[in-house]
């Protein structure tokens, strides 16, 4: 491996350097160093940013701002982010969680990127030097993006309204068969007033289950009433096939696990 690393004080400075061919951003290293170790010769230069703001967690007035360098371990142990802890703990084993970052997770291809699934359900905004954009837009264009992610922002969910499930075959930590995050707002009578459901491993990147979301509106979370949403969950999916599971298997078990999550 032959890599040259440059360190910059600000995201703006590093953005310029990142435009050069063969240059990748180094966050926690779990994606880019792994790629280099694997023999990815398209990676020749690395840039990183030493700005401590990138590792900052800010929770205020119901709003959360996570710097791009915040690790999964930092999220999992933060007392005000308990609702997100299951999603952060779903990422790798303890060493990986000490290294894997919020920013990197946004770029992780399926079957990785479980935390990005949670951020998608939360409808987070992705902050770059060029401004901010909805996470769904960011994920759709991430392969072409040359902008360094500085932070993500979202409204802190109430613990009872946010649910996360990762399905894997190896316990306690394995690669995802699939992951699901759901943000459900319910009326006083228990009917679903709004639903945001994000899926991992159902495409090459996290995606929203919009048909299922629409089918849940006005429903109570009972087996009978959620049945149409479960039937609609597979609309638009193109699951990945990998050594963990085939696309067929992932599609078959998606409604089973979505049902368990909604009824939990």
């Amino acid at each position, binding site marked *: *491996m*032959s*890599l*040259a*690393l440059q360190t910059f004080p600000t995201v703006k400075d590093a953005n310029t350097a990142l435009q050069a061919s063969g240059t990748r951003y*180094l966050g*926690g*290293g*779990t994606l880019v*160093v*792994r790629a*280099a*170790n*694997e023999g990815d010769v398209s990676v020749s230069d*690395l840039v*990183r940013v030493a700005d401590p703001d990138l590792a900052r967690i800010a929770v205020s007035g119901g709003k959360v701002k996570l710097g791009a360098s915040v690790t999964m*371990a930092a999220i999992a142990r933060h007392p005000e982010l308990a609702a997100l802890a299951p999603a952060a703990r779903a990422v*790798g*084993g*303890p*060493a*990986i969680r*000490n*290294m894997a970052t919020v920013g990197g997770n946004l770029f992780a291809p399926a079957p990785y990127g479980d935390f990005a699934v949670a951020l998608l359900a939360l409808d987070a905004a992705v902050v770059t030097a060029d401004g901010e954009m909805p996470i769904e837009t960011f994920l759709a264009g991430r392969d072409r993006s040359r902008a360094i992610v500085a932070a993500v922002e979202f409204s802190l969910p109430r613990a009872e309204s946010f649910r996360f499930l990762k399905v894997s075959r190896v316990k*306690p*930590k394995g690669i995802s068969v699939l992951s699901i995050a759901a943000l459900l707002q319910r009326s006083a009578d228990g009917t679903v007033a709004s639903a945001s459901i994000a899926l991992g491993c159902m495409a090459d990147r996290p995606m929203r289950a919009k048909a299922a979301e629409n089918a849940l509106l006005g429903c109570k979370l009972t087996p009978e009433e959620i049945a149409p949403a479960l039937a609609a969950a597979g609309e638009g999916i193109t699951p990945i096939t990998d050594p963990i599971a085939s696309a067929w298997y992932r599609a078959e078990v998606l409604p089973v696990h979505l049902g368990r999550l909604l009824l939990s």
Partner: protein
Amino acid sequence: MAKVPVQFTLNGSEKAEFIESGTTLLHALRDKIGDTSPKGGCHQGTCGACSVIIDGELRLSCLMLAETCSGADIQTAAGLAEGGMLHPLQRAFLDAFATQCGFCTPGMIIAAKVLLDHTPNPSREDVVEALSGNICRCTGYEPIIQAVLAAARANSQNAA
């Protein structure tokens, strides 16, 4: 390739080297400094054989660039024994026959050390979780789990 200066503390000793930019910490430790206790297994962050402790946190040396570790306090399995005496975890692994080929063992012990440093009396679930990033292909996990629990019991008895 340009060489860059790197300084850190390794098992209590100051180290200062010039290394090629982009060198992983694993390669720097093994090939430059001569600490071969972290093992190069998968180089993908999956097996945990290269685990080290950096500033008190468990990390994978195969996925870290050495030059990002300047100023850090690094501990490896090679630094655990003191004065010719094995660390209680090392002794427990021997006593419980928790090692066969031994390739995964330094990473397992380092992961277990971080656990016991923070959780001196872990439950079995705590141990399983702490070792969940480490793969062993010959011993199986039960003897390893029992060894860590035994080391924790020995520590608590010594502390009492």
